[in-house]
């Protein structure tokens, strides 16, 4: 009974994982290097 909903939810989760992981790597790199640039600018 609940199986079609589970299929839908699992499919959405499986597709969204690509975007989630790539946005995580991008945002971590952007914030890390921006933070390092700000801290360098203090000196």
């Amino acid at each position: 009974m609940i199986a079609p909903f589970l299929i839908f939810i699992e499919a959405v989760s499986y597709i969204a994982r690509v975007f989630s992981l790539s946005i995580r790597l991008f945002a971590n790199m952007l914030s890390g290097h921006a933070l390092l640039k700000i801290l360098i600018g203090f000196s």
Partner: protein
Amino acid sequence: MFIPIFLVVLDPLEQFDVLALPLIGGGLTNLSLLLAINVVIMLAWFSSYSAQVTNNYDFVLRSLYMLVRSMVRENLYVRKQQYFTVLFYLFFTLLIANLVGMVPYSFTITSSFVVTFFIAMTHFVAINHLAVVKHQ
């Protein structure tokens, strides 16, 4: 007008601008040059490896190889470790990209969304293609 150097506010986000470099053909950008440098560093590092570890680079490469191999063996349950090279290449691409990005006046290729999304999308398509081919 003279501005003292300690009053200049540095823009922390200008290091992520993709600029066209006036070099060889003119079609070279910041991002593509650093992608090529990434591949060159990886090839130089891997090809200079000797099996008797005499160098610090060899030692680091060997210990990172053991690290990636243990990670793959823990997480990937296939009998032959046939997808090890893909994950090894992925690990070293990201490692060298982030190490090169630490150099001042350099560029970090993983801080542009095109590169990370390209990596994620190619691996997604490849994994699904392999799954459909193998379990059809």
